[in-house]
């Protein structure tokens, strides 16, 4: 890191997230004056112009890449037209111990005076809840599923390479051309399309104006700056006069161009996840290669620019979430995720020296944002993957690793072209999409353990005392495991139907009331179709439902099958009573369920068959169902932190899990029940036909000593390549620190799977003597970072 980026990094880390009322105030006043004068797309485009025209600009000392969404780093605007925070919401944000946002009393006053009176019965959230049926509300409140668009707009997309080849003036020319080509005689939608296109043109004006204001600011500040800074400010002004109006000519302009696009996407609406640069190493390569060759950009200067660029991401805290939505994703990370390596459009290997440079920067800066991942294909050279593994070994939890060949295959199955699939990749946590050409929207997590619970209670949710599910037969009447599974399937289908009915309504509300004009400009084929990103304008439109708790539900089904139906040791009604009373007085049984029944994650076919059967059933219930955008629903296996919230709303489960405790996360086994090592976990996970999903998430944890030396890297490398050979989608590694080992000492039952290395020999940490545990903790502390 240079001195400059070290300072900028420290400032970014030190900045505390806060709420700014700036955007809320501008947009509210704009709507008060203009809401009935224009079509909705034009209104949105104009309101975006108003924001960038009136907002306060931040130009930090030492910055080379400029632009903040708020008036200062980590000042997070609100989006009252989507969700209007109450005064109480703001006070909670200001005072909650985790993921806190400071809220100035003046902001609360502004909300009381202007924002709340205007938006409380007009926000998207208000309209949504007014329209959503009671069955949806009940299932939502019971914790059957969550809803992503309840407080945030559809997001989840990523830039492709066209950005670097076209400026906003070029996009405006495309828009003008599309308007000119409209057939007002025969196309009944021509008028709507023209309004959408006009909105898009306005958003191009907005982003160009934003850059122009920065050019003006940098020029005026240059007059009073030190000579060295003056040169930098004049350079910033020059860059901002060029991009984004025109295509970038060099590395610096390319980074600044992307950054204005990023800011525009996340300022116009608050899409979840923010926005991502996609294959940054591939996109920047032509600029870097040329400037490196002609001597105009030494590698260290490229590094500094990239570091300044990274800090910009870290300055942008996620919009503030409330209630269930905060619980399902309890983080201030906004999930911007950079793809490394992967494939080029022609199918060749996409790595270059920037892949290495970016890994070096990720290692040096280890910021929360941007996150990073490597797309590992068969063609990815071993040394590139090993470089990533050396960074992973340090325990930051990134880069995560994806199977680029599987990512292509998954997209081909969804009907995309081979080239578009190769140009795609992963964003957010693990989601697969065709970058720059697709709206792939996560719509909410789906609680699998709750579905099993409903099937054991004829659809009644005991916690909320509400009939949520289908009225399946009395469990006392189940004569076989198949009867039980049939009831489980009925509940899954019933609640998926409720979820999809709600989704369709929400999609249409966004399509008609909340176009994303700027995102539509940069997403193919919105301009050509004259349709918004939120209304099916993108070339591909996939809607995801993310199932949570596959490990917990598989183990629960295995236990029921073994104990109730195969061995007939307990009747189902007795078992259900024990679960309803949270194993009270039944600790011996609970221990046996935890320790002595079949568990997913051990390459145990008995348990794994329940997993594959559940997966197939879920897939049938979700995949291919039409959404409102001409696309289809897809299944994902991803939890973020929702497995904790979903666990809280669930009763005790048949795998021995106590009431209220977390469910398993992603496609990982239940915490601590995988006892046969990482290869068995991978074998179990690979039995899921992951290519049929839009993403799966597998977490593994290792002690640093297990990954020591070149041998550690070699072993990890073989493990990754093996899993990807088996069509695994994703894996990420937690390299545990001393604190984690302390936690394992305190809670051995949840950490039984933690393997540590002891002098060329590995063992389960919790089975070591206290003295040996201490020795290992001390060693870990010594090698911690």
């Amino acid at each position, binding site marked *: 890191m240079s001195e400059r980026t070290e300072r900028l990094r420290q400032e970014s880390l030190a900045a505390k997230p806060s709420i700014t009322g700036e955007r809320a105030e501008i947009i509210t006043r704009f709507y008060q004056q203009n809401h009935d004068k224009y079509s909705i797309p034009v209104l949105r485009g104009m309101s975006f112009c108003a924001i960038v025209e009136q907002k306060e600009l931040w130009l930090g000392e030492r910055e080379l890449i400029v632009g903040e969404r708020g008036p200062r780093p980590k000042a997070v605007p609100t989006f009252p037209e989507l969700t209007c925070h109450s005064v109480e919401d703001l006070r909670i944000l200001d005072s909650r111990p985790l993921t806190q946002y400071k809220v100035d009393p003046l902001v609360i006053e502004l909300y009381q005076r202007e924002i709340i009176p205007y938006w409380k019965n007009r926000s998207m959230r208000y309209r949504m809840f007014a329209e959503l049926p009671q069955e949806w509300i009940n299932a939502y409140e019971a914790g059957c599923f969550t809803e992503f668009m309840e407080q945030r707009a559809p997001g989840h997309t990523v830039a492709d390479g066209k950005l670097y080849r076209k400026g906003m003036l070029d996009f405006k020319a495309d828009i003008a051309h599309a308007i000119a080509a409209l057939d007002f005689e025969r196309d009944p939608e021509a008028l709507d399309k023209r309004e959408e296109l006009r909105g898009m043109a306005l958003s191009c004006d907005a982003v160009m104006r934003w850059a122009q204001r920065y050019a003006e600011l940098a020029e005026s500040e240059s007059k009073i700056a030190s000579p060295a800074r003056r040169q930098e400010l004049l350079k910033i002004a020059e860059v901002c006069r060029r991009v984004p109006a025109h295509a970038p000519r060099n590395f610096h302009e390319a980074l600044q161009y992307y950054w204005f696009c990023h800011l525009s996407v996340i300022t116009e609406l608050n899409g979840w996840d923010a926005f991502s640069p996609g294959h940054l190493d591939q996109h920047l390569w032509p600029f870097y290669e040329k400037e490196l060759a002609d001597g105009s950009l030494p590698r260290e200067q490229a590094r500094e620019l990239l570091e300044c660029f990274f800090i910009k991401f870290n300055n942008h805290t996620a919009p503030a979430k409330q209630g269930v939505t905060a619980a399902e994703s309890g983080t201030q990370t906004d999930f911007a995720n950079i793809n490394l390596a992967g494939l080029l459009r022609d199918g060749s290997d996409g790595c270059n020296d920037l892949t290495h440079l970016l890994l070096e920067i990720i290692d040096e800066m280890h910021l929360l944002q941007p996150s990073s991942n490597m797309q590992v294909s068969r063609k990815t050279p071993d040394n590139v993957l090993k470089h990533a593994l050396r960074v992973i070994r340090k325990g930051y939890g990134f880069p995560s690793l994806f199977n680029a060949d599987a990512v292509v295959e998954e997209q081909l199955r969804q009907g995309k072209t081979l080239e578009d699939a190769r140009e795609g990749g992963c964003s957010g946590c693990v989601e697969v999409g065709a970058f720059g050409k697709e709206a792939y929207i996560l719509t909410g997590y789906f609680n699998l353990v709750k579905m099993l619970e409903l099937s054991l209670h004829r659809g009644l949710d005991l916690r909320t005392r509400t009939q949520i599910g289908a009225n399946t037969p009395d469990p006392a009447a189940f004569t076989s495991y198949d009867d039980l599974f049939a009831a489980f399937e009925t509940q899954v289908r019933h609640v998926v139907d409720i979820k999809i009915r709600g989704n369709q309504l929400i999609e249409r509300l966004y399509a008609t009331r909340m176009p994303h004009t700027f995102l539509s400009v940069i997403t193919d084929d919105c301009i050509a179709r004259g349709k918004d990103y939120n209304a099916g304008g993108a070339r591909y439109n996939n809607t995801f439902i993310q199932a949570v708790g596959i490990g917990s539900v598989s183990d629960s089904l295995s236990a029921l099958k073994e104990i109730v139906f195969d061995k007939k040791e307990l009747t189902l009604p007795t078992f259900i009573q024990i679960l309803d009373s949270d194993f009270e007085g039944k*600790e*011996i049984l609970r*221990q046996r369920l935890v320790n002595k029944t079949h568990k997913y994650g051990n390459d145990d076919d008995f348990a794994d068959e329940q997993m594959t059967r559940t997966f197939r059933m879920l897939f049938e219930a979700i995949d291919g169902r039409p959404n409102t955008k001409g696309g289809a629903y897809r299944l994902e296996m991803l939890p973020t932190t929702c497995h904790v919230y979903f666990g809280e709303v669930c009763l005790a489960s048949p795998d021995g899990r106590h009431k209220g405790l977390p469910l398993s996360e992603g496609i990982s086994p239940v915490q601590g029940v995988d006892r046969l090592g990482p*290869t068995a976990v991978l074998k179990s996970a690979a039995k899921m036909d992951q290519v049929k999903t839009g993403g799966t998430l597998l977490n593994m944890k290792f002690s640093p000593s297990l990954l020591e030396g070149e041998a550690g890297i070699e072993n990890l490398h073989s493990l990754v390549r093996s899993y990807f050979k088996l069509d695994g989608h994703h894996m990420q590694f937690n390299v545990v620190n001393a604190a984690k080992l302390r936690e394992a000492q305190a809670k051995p039952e949840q950490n039984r799977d933690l393997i540590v290395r002891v002098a060329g*020999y590995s063992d389960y940490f919790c*089975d070591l*003597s206290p003295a*040996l545990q201490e020795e290992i903790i001390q060693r870990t502390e010594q090698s911690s970072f």
Partner: protein
Amino acid sequence: MKGCPLSCLWCHNPESRMSHAEFVRMENRCMACGLCNQEELAGRGTRVLSDKDVESCPTGALQKAGLEIEPAALVKLLLRDRVFFDESGGGVTFSGGEPLLQMSFLTETLDLLRAEGVHTALDTCGYAPWRDLQKAAQRSSLVLYDLKLMDGVRHQAATGQSNRIILDNLKALSEIHAGIWIRVPVIPGINDDDGNMGAAARFLSSLAGIRQVVLLPYHHIGEPKFARMGKTYALAGLQAPTLQRLESRAAIFRARGLVTTIGGRP
């Protein structure tokens, strides 16, 4: 594989010494539910544990060390990990205890694995009839051969057996097998002195076929295992060797032209 002709003081797999299956208790897991009548057993030893007790133990505190399995069934189990063998160039190592105590099982399993193209390795203490070692080594791409003490008396004291067969076998093996790694445990105060290490290095360098030596530092992992089996650990309180000490031991071997690594790592 269970059963070992030696009984090394530093043994870290005491559950593999006896040829028959044994019961092992993990005290830290026991919830004292009484299902296995441990109290009764501890008090008077009137009742012998059975497989049923292991099965009914709800926490898995009571375990059986030892599993009877046919070669074909074992190979089927091992091949579940074939993808990892293929990707890493790894395979199956037969260790113990002492694999050479179960020759017909060992050779049959090795043959089955080799027929499947799986890399095989034999980890042996060398205390076995030459013909057995020869048969097993011929079926193994790699032999990990332990060398503990050069002096016969000291060897007898530390492992319970003389080292004569072990040294003779190694000499013979080095003449017919190209893939031998010598493994020398470094046990402070027992075999880590200059005299023993020097003698071992001299002996090894006199064998033409031997180049690779791995020093295995003493560690405490065996200690709780002895307790679990209700046995006493003779080396309680012994400290692991320092890295500096290990490096100086390695230097003794390197001085003789042997490629020497510590703890299996480069």
